[in-house]
């Protein structure tokens, strides 16, 4: 339980640092719910990613974000106009967002340990509801921004 709380705190801190530093957003967090509920509640299409990792803990992160929000993120991130955002830019932005949040989570959790991060990949939104084995712990965070909500899930095991 203690480890899970640390993971939740590390993920929360990481999301704050990444979105506030590089996307200039203020955020609020909600730890209730899960990815399935989040998907069902969304009234627009969602983009999703997965990033695997191993180290003292192994598992993966899923990130789900409404298409309109990733469009805005890509505009802000790359400093381009709305009509210049392409599907490639959106995919690149959500992958980099996932990469930064995952890497920063482990820096926050334990800067002394080495974690190997995989390459982030875009996945079908339905894959994000996958759970780990019985021995896995799962942390779900709903992140509220001024533009809407996005969700991050971490599945961890030893």
């Amino acid at each position: 339980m203690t480890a899970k709380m640390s993971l939740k705190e590390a993920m929360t801190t990481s999301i704050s640092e990444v979105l506030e530093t590089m996307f200039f957003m203020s955020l609020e967090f909600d730890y209730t719910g899960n990815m399935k509920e989040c998907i069902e509640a969304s009234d627009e299409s969602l983009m999703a990613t997965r990033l695997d990792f191993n180290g003292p803990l192994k598992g993966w992160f899923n990130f789900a974000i409404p298409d309109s929000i990733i469009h805005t993120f890509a505009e802000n991130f790359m400093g381009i106009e709305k009509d210049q955002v392409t599907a490639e830019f959106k995919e690149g932005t959500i992958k980099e967002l996932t990469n930064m949040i995952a890497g920063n989570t482990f820096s926050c959790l334990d800067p002394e340990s080495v974690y190997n991060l995989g390459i982030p990949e875009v996945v079908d939104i339905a894959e994000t509801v996958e759970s780990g084995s019985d021995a896995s712990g799962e942390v779900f965070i709903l992140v509220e921004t001024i533009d809407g909500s996005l969700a991050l899930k971490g599945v961890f095991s030893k």
Partner: protein
Amino acid sequence: MAVNILIVDDSMPMRAVIIKTIRASGYGAATYFQAENGQDALVQLRDNWLDLVVTDYNMPDMNGLDLIKEMKKDDVLSAIPVIVVTTEGSQKKIEEFMEQGAAGYVKKPFTPELIRKKLAEILGEMSDDSEDEFEGGDDDLDF
């Protein structure tokens, strides 16, 4: 002073962000080259005269650490400073980058100020209008 800078990152948006940040740091006169991974970077390094490499660590085909190792094997490329910009935050990894010859390290997420500071350490302070500034005026120019 115009400099040639190679940005190595498999994320195209991140390459764009790094270029935008470096430009905003007063290096607007620089020429930017781009590569998607270490292998691609080595080709660029052998085809162009470059003054600085800014590389990610975690990339497919060849990561940033292997790129630095390959550069150190080459007499010419080994003299080019490399800044690692990455999400890798463990002390061991940072030490490994520096031991292998990285000139500097910036952790993502980064602020423009952090990038500017690191560039200033390595390339020296400069600004977009630096070419117009001669402290001694025309009298000191010897043709």
